[in-house]
């Protein structure tokens, strides 16, 4: 799955969490920061991560991804970092089988 497709998926899930109307005012790119640019509340980021977990299943390890980051790093996360993590996880699964 390429980065553009994953970015589109995440943008759609963001709409579910914070509302499509709010997203109309923001262009979500790989460089968009969840907290700084989208003003996502911390609980909304959790909800987004929950949707991503449901969407991509066990192939994408969100627990390991977030466990390896400290509080400041999670708050500063950009959309592209999550897209890249998902893409690498899916590629690893694809190459295994």
């Amino acid at each position, binding site marked *: 799955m390429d980065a553009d497709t994953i970015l589109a998926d995440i943008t759609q899930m963001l709409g579910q969490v914070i509302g499509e109307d709010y997203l109309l005012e923001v262009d979500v790119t790989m460089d968009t920061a969840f907290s700084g640019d989208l003003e996502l509340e911390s609980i909304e980021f959790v909800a987004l991560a929950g*949707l991503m977990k449901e969407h991509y299943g066990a192939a994408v390890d969100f*627990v390991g991804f977030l*466990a390896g980051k400290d509080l400041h790093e999670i*708050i500063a996360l950009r959309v592209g970092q999550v897209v890249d993590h998902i893409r690498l996880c899916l590629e690893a699964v694809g190459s295994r089988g």
Partner: protein
Amino acid sequence: MADVVANGVRFHVQQLTPPQGRSAETPAVVFIHGLVMDNLSSFYYTLANPCAAAGADVMLYDLRGHGLSERPPLGYALEDSVDDLVGLLFELGIDGPVHIVGNSYGGTVGLAFAMAYPSRIASLVLVEGHFAVQGWGEEMARTLWGIAFGMELEEARTWVASAGRKMTRMAGKADALINHTSLVEDLLTAIPLPREPLATLACPVLAIYGDESDVIDRARDLASLVPDFTLNILEGCGHSILMEVPDHLQAVLAWWFAGRNGPAPVYQPPARDLVAAHPLAELVAG
């Protein structure tokens, strides 16, 4: 599963499974957050994911009226919080003993659950947990009134409005909870936890408190009552240790869940001038 209905209320729940999968020995750990300005994200961002990554089956939920859970007008007494936990465990099919990690009021819920359902708790970790003694409810209610009063001030309203979407939403939720539910009234009529049963509490209790915390006396009180009680005091820290020193808390939890082998990790305070205010610290009031 994000939404779970228990006791007629819709709760926001997050379950984190260990990446290596579950086994019969996988411990179940439930995280319970504090009051009003808090929600499950404070544990999600700090201890929950590392705990799951280390091999635990983790459950977090937003208390009623908090985070993304439903906000009914009634049902905010400590007994209601315990009933909600029991209801959620039932709905999720978690019937074995669980480890509970509670921050502030979440610790009070864990303590009350341990006393009411001793066979259903494997261990209890209090992170700056309140102990519901005489006057506790009034004290908590006074704190919440302070927040509500502060938000009514013109300067506060102007500041919140200028601080953007995130702050406006958080202030709105706190206002709704304090002024439009029975939370404050329920706190004012709170019944203190009985002291005698604490002396027969069978589960191990780990208590982590800052030595500058306003509830440190509660920890010392509990230490004199609970038989298997481990007190971990952090020098130079206040009530918001979850946000101030999450790395230390991670280390202590890892030691606790690995069977308490060897001495507990000791907190090494940084030099005073290196301590920076944490961006989330001021949000965790209860």
